[in-house]
C-alpha cells in the first residue's frame, strides 16, 4: 500500500509539472514579432584637406643694405625669396577659410619699421610692401603676435603659389653692430 501511495504521489507531481511546462510554453508562444529592415541609411564624408608646402630654401640675406620697394619687389636670387604653396583638396560642397601668417622669431633685433615684407600669390602682389605689424589671434587660428599676410577661401581643389620677399627699408639706418630679422610662415585653415 505504501508503495502504491508513493507511486500515486510521483505520478501526480509529474502530471502537475507537465501541466506547468505546457502552460508556460503556450504563454511564450502566444505572440512575438521581428522584422529586420532592408533599407540602408548611410552618410559618407568627402575629402577635405589642406597642404602647405615650403620651398627648399628661404630668405637668407647677409650684409643686407637698404633698398627701395621697387627694387625689393624684384629680388630674384635663390636666397632672396621664399617660395611656398598652399593647396586644398575638396570633394563635395565645402569651404575652407585659410590664412597665411608671418611669425617673427625671437631674437630679431632690427626694428619692425625698418623691414619690408612683400607677398605675391600666383605672381600677383597680395601683401605689402609693409613693415611687420603684430596682430591678435584670429578666428581661423593665426596666433597672437603674428601678422596675417594673406587670407582667402578654398571652395574646390586648387593650389596657390606664393613668393615672399623681405628687405631693409630704404630709409633704414645701418647700426654699428650686426642685427637680424627672421620670420617663419605658418598657414591656418578652417572649414
Amino acid at each position: 500500500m505504501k508503495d502504491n501511495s508513493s507511486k500515486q504521489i510521483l505520478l501526480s507531481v509529474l502530471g502537475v509539472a507537465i501541466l506547468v511546462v505546457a502552460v508556460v510554453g503556450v504563454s511564450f508562444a502566444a505572440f512575438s514579432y521581428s522584422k529586420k529592415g532592408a533599407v540602408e541609411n548611410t552618410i559618407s564624408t568627402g575629402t577635405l584637406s589642406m597642404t602647405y608646402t615650403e620651398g627648399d630654401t628661404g630668405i637668407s640675406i647677409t650684409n643686407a643694405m637698404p633698398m627701395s620697394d621697387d627694387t625689393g619687389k624684384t629680388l630674384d636670387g635663390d636666397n632672396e625669396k621664399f617660395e611656398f604653396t598652399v593647396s586644398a583638396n575638396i570633394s563635395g560642397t565645402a569651404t575652407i577659410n585659410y590664412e597665411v601668417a608671418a611669425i617673427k622669431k625671437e631674437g630679431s633685433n632690427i626694428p619692425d619699421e625698418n623691414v619690408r615684407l612683400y607677398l605675391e600669390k600666383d605672381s600677383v602682389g597680395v601683401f605689402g610692401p609693409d613693415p611687420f605689424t603684430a596682430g591678435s589671434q584670429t578666428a581661423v587660428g593665426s596666433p597672437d603676435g603674428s601678422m596675417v599676410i594673406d587670407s582667402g577661401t578654398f571652395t574646390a581643389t586648387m593650389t596657390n603659389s606664393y613668393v615672399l620677399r623681405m628687405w631693409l627699408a630704404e630709409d633704414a639706418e645701418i647700426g654699428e653692430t650686426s642685427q637680424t630679422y627672421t620670420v617663419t610662415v605658418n598657414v591656418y585653415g578652417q572649414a
Partner: protein
Amino acid sequence: MKGVMKENYSKSLVLSLVGLVILFLLVISVSLATFVYSKTGTITNTIQTGTLMMTYTEGNTGIKIDNALPMSDEVGKTLKEENEMFQFTVSSTIRGDAAIRYEIAAIKKDTSTLSDDMVKLYLERSSDGVNYLESMAPTEFTPISEQSSLGSPAGSMIIESGTFTQTQTNHYILRMWLKEEVTLPNIPQQYAVTVSVYGGI
C-alpha cells in the same frame, strides 16, 4: 430411496441456480430500465481568438548623404530632402484586450568606419503622418550590451520603445548627421545603419 433423494437434490440445486440467475438478470434489467433521460442543450459555449498583429513598413528611400559635413543639431533636426531622412511606419492590429510591447532598433552595419561618437541619430514620431514630434533627441549611437527581452540584438541601439493597446499606426522619421564638433578625416569614411522592429506581449 437414496438415489431418488440425490436426484431430487440435484434438481433443486439446478433450479435454485437458474432461479438466482434469472433473479439477477431481472434485478439488473429493472435497475437499468428504472430511469432514462436525455435532453439536447441549446446554449452554445464558444471560445474565439482575437487578432494580434504587427507590421513594420519601410519607406522607398533611406538616408544617403555623400560628402557629409559636420552640422549642428538645430540644422540636423530639420533636414528635409528625400535622401536626408528615412521614413517608416510601425502598425498594430489588436482585437480584444491585449497589449503589444515593441522596440525599434538601429543596427550599425559592419562597413561603418566613422566612430559612434561622430554621428547623431534623431527620431520623430507622428500618429497621422503629418504632425511629427520628437521621439528621441539627437543622440550618439549607443549600443546595448545584451539582447533585450523583446529581441533587439546586442550591439544595436534601441531608438524607441512603446506599447500598442489598440489598432494604430505610428509614423516615424529617422535623421542622421555628422556631429558639429567632428574634424573631418583626411580619407572618406562612412556610417550606415538599418532599422529593425521587435514586438511581443
